[in-house]
């Protein structure tokens, strides 16, 4: 490593104050800290002093996401071969899927890096690894054939408006990846919602997600019966878990998401309270709607709590987005309320709002908006409690 150190030290002189390349100092600094370990300490960020510094935190999240990428690529290839009716192997499916996943991944990272570096250079802060996590999350929430220019615009919006204008990592209010996705969802709805985009295949092929089936039934029936009537895909509960179904790239295989979640909880990055609370909220609301289903002709109300957990991106959103340390509530009591409300709003938006079959993204964004309020009142009630105790 000595020669690397020497090269970096030599080139570093060019980037010092007053030298011609000084404007690009953050770039040099980022290269230096990625290649070599540093002896500097964190000055800001969402965590206490620990050997889990901000770089390692961010990197562990990216590691937890890698299995989802691999399965997502395989799933695209598998559904494609199934639609064509040709025999295929795991490897060929995987390679075919990679031809869709890799361009999305590359475009997202280029867009994210451009925004992050521009802001770092202009505002003279260090390049934060936070954008790696946002950029790793965005492709996983996309349908496989999203137009790349839309992806580019969405990522720029998410990184700049969702994060950079708040002052970078650790100070943002809304999850940048979800801000990017919401922007694309409302700006280009035809490419990121509906029934045609969630799986790739020959021309005229449609791959509806499990959620859009009870949302637009031809005639009223319970959700389980409607799922069983679908011949194109296997929407049995077991296969919903294994994830060989159409959907966003990263959301389909629930086992890998759960493993990623356990990994994050083990490292102390994500909050288990939020995950459990949101599942509770979802089960409560879905159970309530099941009871009300007899009085309505809305097939969405008949989805059982277990199906609600397994279909769509609920688990993905809960594990990787709702429970992140920055945009969620920062008090333990607040985490229970926050998570519960995410589960509740998810089911409400899914079932009651005909405009959106999936509600996780907007549920998390709404609760991002109310998280500071929940914290404020919990802290205030603690203060009042202690005042009265010590009065």
């Amino acid at each position, binding site marked *: 490593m000595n020669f690397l150190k020497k090269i970096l030290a030599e080139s570093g002189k060019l980037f010092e104050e007053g030298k011609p390349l000084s404007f690009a100092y953050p770039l040099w600094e980022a290269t230096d800290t990625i290649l070599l370990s540093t002896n500097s300490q964190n000055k800001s960020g969402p965590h206490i002093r620990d050997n889990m510094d901000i770089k390692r935190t961010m990197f562990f999240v990216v590691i937890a996401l890698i299995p989802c990428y691999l399965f997502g690529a395989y799933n695209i290839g598998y559904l494609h071969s199934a639609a064509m009716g040709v025999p295929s192997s795991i490897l060929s499916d995987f390679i075919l899927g990679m031809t869709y996943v890799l361009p999305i991944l590359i475009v997202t990272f280029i867009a994210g890096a451009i925004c992050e570096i521009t802001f770092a250079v202009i505002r003279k802060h260090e390049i934060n690894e936070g954008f790696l996590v946002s950029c790793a999350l965005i492709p996983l929430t996309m349908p496989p054939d999203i137009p790349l220019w839309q992806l580019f615009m969405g990522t720029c919006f998410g990184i700049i408006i969702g994060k950079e*204008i708040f002052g970078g990592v650790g*100070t943002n209010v809304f999850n940048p990846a979800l801000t990017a996705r919401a922007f694309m969802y409302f700006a280009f709805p035809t490419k990121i919602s509906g029934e045609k985009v969630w799986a790739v295949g020959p021309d005229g092929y449609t791959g509806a997600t499990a959620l859009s089936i009870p949302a637009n039934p031809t005639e009223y029936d319970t959700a389980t019966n409607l799922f069983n009537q679908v011949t194109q895909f296997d929407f049995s509960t077991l296969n919903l878990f294994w994830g060989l179904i159409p959907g966003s790239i990263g959301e389909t295989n629930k086992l890998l998401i759960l493993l990623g979640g356990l990994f994050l909880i083990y490292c102390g990055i994500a909050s288990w309270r939020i995950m459990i609370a949101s599942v509770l909220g979802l089960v409560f609301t879905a159970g309530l709607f099941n009871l009300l289903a007899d009085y309505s002709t809305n097939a969405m109300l008949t989805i059982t709590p277990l199906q609600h957990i397994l279909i769509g991106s609920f688990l993905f959103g809960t594990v990787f987005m709702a429970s992140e340390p920055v945009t969620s509530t920062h008090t333990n009591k607040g985490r229970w309320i926050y998570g519960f409300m995410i589960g509740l709003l998810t089911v409400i938006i899914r079932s009651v709002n005909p*405009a959106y079959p999936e509600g996780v993204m907007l549920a998390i964004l709404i609760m991002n*908006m*109310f998280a500071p309020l929940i914290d*404020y009142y919990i802290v205030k009630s603690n203060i009042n409690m202690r005042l009265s105790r010590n009065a």
Partner: protein
Amino acid sequence: MGGFEDYLSIFTKAVFIENIVLAYFLGLCSFLAISKSIDASVGIGMAVVVVLTITAPINWFIYEFLLAKGALVWLNHLPYGLSLSYDFSNTDLSFLKLIVFISVIAAMVQLVEMFMERFSQSLYNSLGIFLPLIAVNCSILGGSLFMVEREYDVTQTIVYGFGSGVGFFLAIVALASVRYRLRYSNIPPRLRGVGMAMLLTGLLSMAFMAFSGIDL
């Protein structure tokens, strides 16, 4: 129509689906200015709830019995054999509704202000100039005008006015708490203050799009 379900649906619509701030962008001046502090936001939110709940039905009565086309027809049937030698069944004074509604609102705000000065001095001081400015808060005029446009009856109007007020309350308290969390953020200098508040309003209303499209 009518009945409890109808009122519940009007209320939910006014609070979430057609939130007066985040879906219609009405009442932004006090929304942006007061949201610097959470306690003041709670205060002005309550003031808006009270003023809207009172002014909307008052304006409804004024509109139904004085201003709308044919509203003055009761003048043709005065008791005790009185009669004015003019046919009022076609009189249409609805062109006056803007100015009449505004004066009713201004009078009501004056009352609320006096009430607050008497009973909550600290809140009165923290709201400062913005309390009288509720009089020209377009969310309150908007509430009255929507009530006319949607042809609500009197109970619906009360529910709608209350719901719109609660919607405003929710939005301003949410924005205030978000700004409270941002007080240590390193925001670009030119964006600090109102610029950031405008951007946040946009982001909040994007999140509130979750409810748009719900058909009650």
